[in-house]
């Protein structure tokens, strides 16, 4: 990734409005996707930018398709679908009370939808994510939990239980690892999530099954 190119990209993207900016940044696709893909993606990106959606993920998805040798029409379809999910996320966010969502939050919403959550779930999560909870983080965690196989309604319950219990954002970030730990101990994703939800609701710190801590008691009489 040459430094001159980075220089140019920043200058281009900063200086030119909407469609022209899309054209400039599209040089990233040169040599990586066939011209028809490039053309189609530029249009999708310009349209997305006009709606206030982040465009970087669209370039990345196109480059990914090119790298994986995917047929052109499939790449275009995937990029269009991603733009659609981001649009849905944007709508859900606005209805959830976020008037000017950042790119991170919109991408998080799109990821959550891709992982199986509904627009309504996204809205609920965003509404629940008042400070100190960052909606981008909440959505990212929800998407990862969905990617682990936790059913969508349980993702919602678990995240909302953690927030209601006042658990720290750091604890929220640790949820996927806790679920994975439960899975490695033989629970299904749903069971692991249910256990964590119960623990959060009861105000106890989550302990993955089979992993209750034990330590040697210290002898206070040791010199």
């Amino acid at each position, binding site marked *: 990734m040459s430094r001159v190119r980075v220089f140019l990209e920043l200058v281009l993207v900063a200086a030119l409005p909407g469609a022209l900016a899309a054209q400039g940044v599209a040089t990233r696709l040169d040599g990586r996707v066939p011209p028809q893909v490039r053309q189609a993606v530029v249009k999708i990106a310009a349209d997305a930018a006009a709606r206030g959606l982040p465009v970087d993920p669209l370039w990345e998805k196109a480059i990914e398709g090119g790298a994986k040798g995917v047929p052109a029409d499939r790449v275009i379809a995937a990029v269009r679908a991603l733009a659609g999910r981001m649009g849905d996320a944007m709508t859900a966010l606005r209805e959830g009370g976020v008037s000017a969502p950042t790119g991170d939050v919109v991408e998080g919403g799109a990821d959550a939808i891709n992982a199986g959550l509904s627009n309504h779930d996204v809205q609920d999560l965003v509404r629940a994510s008042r400070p100190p909870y960052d909606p981008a983080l909440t959505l990212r965690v929800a998407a990862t939990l969905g990617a682990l196989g936790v059913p969508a309604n349980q993702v919602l319950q678990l995240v909302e239980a953690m927030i209601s219990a006042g658990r720290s954002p750091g604890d929220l970030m640790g949820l996927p690892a806790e679920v994975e730990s439960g899975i490695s101990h033989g629970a299904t994703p749903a069971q692991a999530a249910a256990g964590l939800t119960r623990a959060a609701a009861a105000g106890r710190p989550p302990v993955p099954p089979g992993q209750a801590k034990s330590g040697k008691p210290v002898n*206070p009489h040791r010199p």
Partner: protein
Amino acid sequence: MAGYHPLVKQVLDGELSLADLPRDLRAEGEEAVRLIQAADHSPVTLSPAVEQRVMAAVRAHASSPARRAWRWLHAPRDVELRVRVRPWVVWSGALAVAAALAILFMRPSASPTPSTQLASRDSVFVRFVLYAPGARRVAVAGTFNQWDQGAAPLVPAGTSGVWTTTLALPVGQHQYAFVVDGERWVVDPAAPSVDDGFGRRNSLVSVARGTHIL
């Protein structure tokens, strides 16, 4: 609530035994001992990846000053600047960043001594491992390297069939997959995965300040 009686504190310090306490202090002594015993003494084992990460940084630090400056220029934090630049970035802001980059690009030897931190404040080392016996080459491609198979090859790790590499990834979430022999795209079975939109799946890795979560 009053503090502990001085004799009770001596019990905690190991200078007196519980039995030595006068009867009326016994209960307080037992409570205090319960407090101390609640401390978590379980041994803490860090990840085996620590060695890999430290030695990677050590080798980078050990190279010559010119090479160190060159590495600093290409430090992962540059990636943070490149992505997520929205079309409505303020012109002056972009200019300042671009100017800074231009200076770095033109005068690498003038850059300050590279930080001795393990990774920049914005990136963390993450180790990728794949068991692929019979593979001739393995690479990892993802959003952090433009899905370029050539960017991050894995190397055989010594035990037959195991391939590995360690990359410094910027904070955030990334998608990736392994590429075996230049044509077979394989997810990381140990990581959560998502639909890639092309009929396959990508693996997910979340990188947070100070840690990585697979």
